[in-house]
């Protein structure tokens, strides 16, 4: 145990003493995130689509639609019921709001005014439902207030509300949880993953230097067992990965007040991703002979797989074929999993699939890595 810890601590010490790796692991990703994050925050990103289904063509409903469209965080589109259901099922639309034919009846029997069709309860959806509840409350109040007047009064009140500033309060309330924040957070995570891959494969390739430098051989002829040595290196790189991620997460949190979803999910998932990256580094170290070769090969591999795996841009913007090919790189699964966690949708089936895939990659990488690394 002491030997393992000794190896971990000397690895970490050496690592934090080398300025190159510090730049790679902390400064670069922070810089990239800051620049690209800034751009992303300022640019109009695509808004989540919400479908509206009208059950009847009343004046009241026309006014309600206007009222809903006041929230410009979502893109509102009228659809038929069946089309809307399809859109939601295929995740083309975040949700569909169904407006009833007769609001008065709904109020009388004390049922919710809007029916909502939804697939995943993501953070976007939470923002939407907050807004819908507020709107519904307004509609109900207006209805009750105009009960003793003539029928025309109700839509008139609604129209008045639409033109007044009342709803903007709601908008500010939900501003923090806007949709594109998830994308931006994913961008940060993506950069963290990429630079972690660079950093850790660089760190793992010091094994090659150590072999030439003789410390590796010296360790082999000490009473430390292969298992202890392997665990020492493995855990050391794992720690490096976590330190990097933790620092970046905290920095991004302070800079952009980003959220990372439920930590209960985030931490174990990130741990597996880091382990997978460590495996990747060990694999590179195991198949090449010199550190130069390692850095050349890993640069090519990392950049290309990150492109494929949707680290630089959301994977759904690339052609179908590419998305299929992308399944063969671990980043795809890592990003998909992080998306589930950060968006808050936490769809168990998807998460399980991502976890299983990553676990597979990790085992494969470690296997190749440890077979390639010569213990002599």
């Amino acid at each position, binding site marked *: 145990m*002491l*030997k393992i810890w000794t190896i971990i601590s*000397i690895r970490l010490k*050496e690592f934090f003493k080398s300025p190159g790796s510090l730049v790679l692991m902390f400064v670069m990703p922070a810089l990239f995130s800051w620049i690209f994050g800034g751009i992303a925050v300022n640019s109009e990103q695509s808004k989540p689509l919400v479908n509206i289904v009208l059950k009847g063509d009343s004046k009241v409903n026309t006014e309600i639609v206007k009222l809903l469209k006041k929230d410009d965080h979502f893109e509102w589109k009228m659809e038929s019921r069946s089309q809307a259901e399809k859109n939601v099922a295929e995740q083309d639309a975040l949700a569909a709001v169904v407006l009833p034919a007769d609001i008065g009846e709904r109020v009388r029997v004390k049922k919710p005014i809007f029916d909502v069709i939804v697939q995943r309860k993501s953070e976007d959806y939470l923002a939407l439902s907050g807004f819908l509840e507020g709107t519904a409350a307004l509609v109900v109040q207006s209805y009750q207030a105009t009960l003793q007047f003539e029928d025309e009064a109700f839509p008139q009140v609604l129209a008045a509300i639409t033109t007044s500033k009342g709803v903007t309060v709601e908008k500010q309330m939900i501003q923090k949880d806007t949709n594109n924040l998830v994308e931006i957070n994913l961008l940060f995570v993506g950069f963290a993953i990429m630079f972690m891959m660079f950093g850790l494969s660089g760190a793992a390739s010091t094994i090659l230097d150590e072999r030439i430098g003789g410390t590796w051989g*010296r360790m082999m*002829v000490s*009473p430390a067992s292969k298992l202890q040595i392997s665990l020492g290196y493995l855990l050391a790189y794992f720690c490096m990965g976590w330190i990097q991620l933790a620092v970046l997460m905290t920095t991004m949190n302070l800079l952009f007040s980003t959220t990372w979803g439920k930590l209960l999910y985030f931490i174990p998932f990130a741990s597996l991703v880091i382990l997978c990256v460590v495996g990747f580094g060990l694999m590179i170290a195991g198949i090449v002979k010199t550190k130069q070769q390692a850095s050349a090969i890993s640069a090519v591999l990392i950049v290309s797989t990150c492109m494929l795996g949707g680290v630089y841009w959301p994977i759904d913007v690339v052609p179908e074929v590419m998305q299929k090919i992308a399944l063969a790189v671990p980043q795809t699964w890592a990003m998909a999993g992080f998306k589930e966690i950060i968006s808050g949708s936490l769809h168990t089936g998807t998460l399980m699939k991502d976890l299983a895939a990553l676990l597979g990659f990790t085992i494969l990488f470690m296997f190749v890595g440890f077979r390639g690394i010569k213990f*002599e």
Partner: protein
Amino acid sequence: MSMLTVQDLQKSFGKFEAVKGVSFTVEKGESFGLLGPNGAGKSTMINMITGLYPPTSGEIHMKDIDVIKSPKQAQKWIGVVPQEIALYQSMSARENLRFWGRMYDLSGNSLEKSIDQVLEIIGLTERAKDKVETFSGGMKRRVNIGAAILHKPELLIMDEPTVGIDPQSRNHILETVKRLNSEGMTIIYTSHYMEEVEYLCERIGIVDYGQLIASGTLRELRESIGDHSRIFLTIEKDHLSEEKLTKSLLGFFPEKNFELQDHQVMVFHKEPQLILSDFIQLVTQTGTKITSVNIVEPNLESVFLHLTGRKLRD
């Protein structure tokens, strides 16, 4: 029970046979030297004994432990000074010693005490906090040795530990090793400096082309070549009529115990004083001008030369 027994040890790298069936024994408390030129296979033998390379065939036993089957057990008793400096350059001397001490199961107070002692022995107490990369080659060598003796090994294996060190540091190291040996530590020492091996080692194995071509005490080795001294005669080439000289030398030394090379005549002889004047006269008579005469008492160099026909170092 012997400290170390090596039997028919053989190692091939691909088609190349670096060690060709070597056997020897090292007793407890002994200091055993492996002497041989570059590429003879010394390091390869050492690396097999320490468990770094698996041998192609053969057996290695340390006490009653089979080193090939259970290297980790034997490695606890062994201290290794690798030929190349094997240290973490960006760490201080003390940090390096601490790291390697822990690898050998030392910890806490006893480790720190051990480090202090070793720093004293290698004469680097003052520089303990400096990074190894700022050290001179000799200082690095000394840390390299220090890391091997922290855990007070029963068997200390040193692979050319003094390469590239100034004579002063070298003497210091040799004295240290000698003292460790006199305190009971068994030593295996490889070198291509015969003076070092002569000074340090009670028993010596001579290695050439992967084979142990002779072994024994210094005296035994000398006697094996008949305790011959060598007479070196440097001559001037202008006056050299090689044929004539060879002919008269053959007359004088019918057993052909001489060699003629460019400017030099070398003669093996048990009692050089007896023949010296006659020999000089003979050479002069052929019209050859002699510029220097030198008599070398038998040493490991002459043993090696005698056995292989080559010098230990060119």
